């Protein structure tokens, strides 16, 4: 069990290291001739106007919000799913109530037009 995590930890380090090493090697092989025009921001040849870090529509935030709620439910539903074989029908119905409440939230969002891309 602990050994599994040792392997995972090492593997994570390796998979971070490989692309980093490749980029480093390429940076060492590649020519370096920066100039002003080349380094300017690429916006189809048009001069950059205004602050780059523009503001965004709130729609993205609402999607992220609904996503967050469904993401948190994993912490509760995955243990439930793992134990599913040993559960009684009553315990299964409890999770159904849990899911129905979440579905209610989704329906609210839908009816309020929060899921509408416009």
């Amino acid at each position, binding site marked *: 069990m602990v*050994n*599994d995590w*040792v*392997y*995972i930890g*090492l*593997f*994570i380090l*390796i*998979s*971070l290291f*490989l*692309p*980093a090493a*490749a*980029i480093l090697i*390429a*940076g060492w*092989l*590649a*020519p*370096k*001739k*920066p100039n002003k025009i080349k*380094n300017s*921001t*690429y*916006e189809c040849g048009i001069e*950059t106007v205004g602050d*780059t*870090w*523009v503001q965004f529509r709130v*729609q*993205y935030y609402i*999607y*992220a919000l*609904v*996503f967050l709620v*469904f*993401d948190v439910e*994993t912490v509760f*539903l*995955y243990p439930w*799913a*793992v*134990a*599913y*074989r040993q559960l009684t*029908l009553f315990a*299964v*119905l409890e*999770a*159904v109530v849990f*899911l129905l409440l*979440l*579905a209610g939230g*989704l329906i609210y969002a*839908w009816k309020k037009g929060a*899921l509408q*891309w416009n």
Partner: protein
Amino acid sequence: MTFWTDPIGLLDAWLFAVLTGWGLPADVSRIILYILGGFVLATGAMVFTVFLIWLERKLIGRFQDRFGPNRVGPFGIFQTVADMLKIFTKEFITPDGADLIPYNLAPILSVAGVLFVWAVLPFAINMLGVNLNVGVLYVVAAGAIGELGMILAGWGSNNKFALIGAFRAIGQMISYEVPMILTLLVPVMFTGSMGLNDIVKAQNPWFVVVAPLAAFIFFISQVAENARAPFDLTEAESELVAGFNIEYSGLKFGMFYVAEFLHAFTISVLFAVIFLGGWLGPGAEKYPWLGLLYTMIKTTVVFFTILLMRAGLPRFRIDQVMDLNWKLFTPLAIGILIVTAVVDKSLALFTPTIRVLGLLAANLVMLLVTLRFLKIFAQKKRRPLVVPSASTELPDDISEVLL
């Protein structure tokens, strides 16, 4: 333990004996072997990508009645190697005002987010990194790291278009993660474990038989998460100025490319493992090489399907993509989860055959109900278009696309 029944175990035992023979303590030798194994697996995945890129270009070419790469080597098989040589020697152009740490971290995280998954993929009964007891969630977590890479790329580039592209990509990816998480609960439920190898072993019959709808939703949401055609509106290479990766050049750009192709293959393996029985097949338990062959055949079928979708389907619009997810897949996934849980529990006392038939019937009923609903919605939506102003607009409803 011979070469034919447990090749990795054999190699591992032999190397372990060699290392301890040199006087190294057992723990240190074990860690060295872990590092070695990890290196082989991760490097293998990266090198395999070179082949995948060639395969994909060749096949897409064939689908479109072209030859594809055919100059370098037989069938153009060394084309990607030549491309790689070129891209390794290209200059890195860093835009002015870039936030350097996120900018350089982004391509690394994108590739790493896909590579992480390989640690838990079971290719055969004993050819795998580890059978982690939270394998399924680990895969989801790796996806989160990939998203982080995109957001960093969009932010670090100091470019409006990159940021907008990143926002769109993230919006799409996090949306499709919802039905993915929900449908992944179904195989976990049937198995009683989150380990991917346990999931493979529990597939009698394959989960695609007992949960076809869940498998379908999982497949489509994985393709959408990979952000390739027909879901590639974050990039739309023929129409927009690329996406979040617009300010990258040389190998840093190449890394995003590698991540995309490797991701396509990884989701094929994942789908084969979780729903198509992975390495299961006659004789696979005894001879892992056969299991590896079965995995690869199933993976290839899935991979071909993804490529066919890429070549054959037109690109969705962003509102269609979002509607498809939030208004069809997510409610349907919740419904599938509820119905499967209740039906399976109520049939727990019957024979396996009745259980399978019951689950199949439940899936069929759900499919019919969904189609019925889609039809009603489509009719509701269509009504305003009947007005004689002769609107030539294409129907903009997702149900139209599906029906």
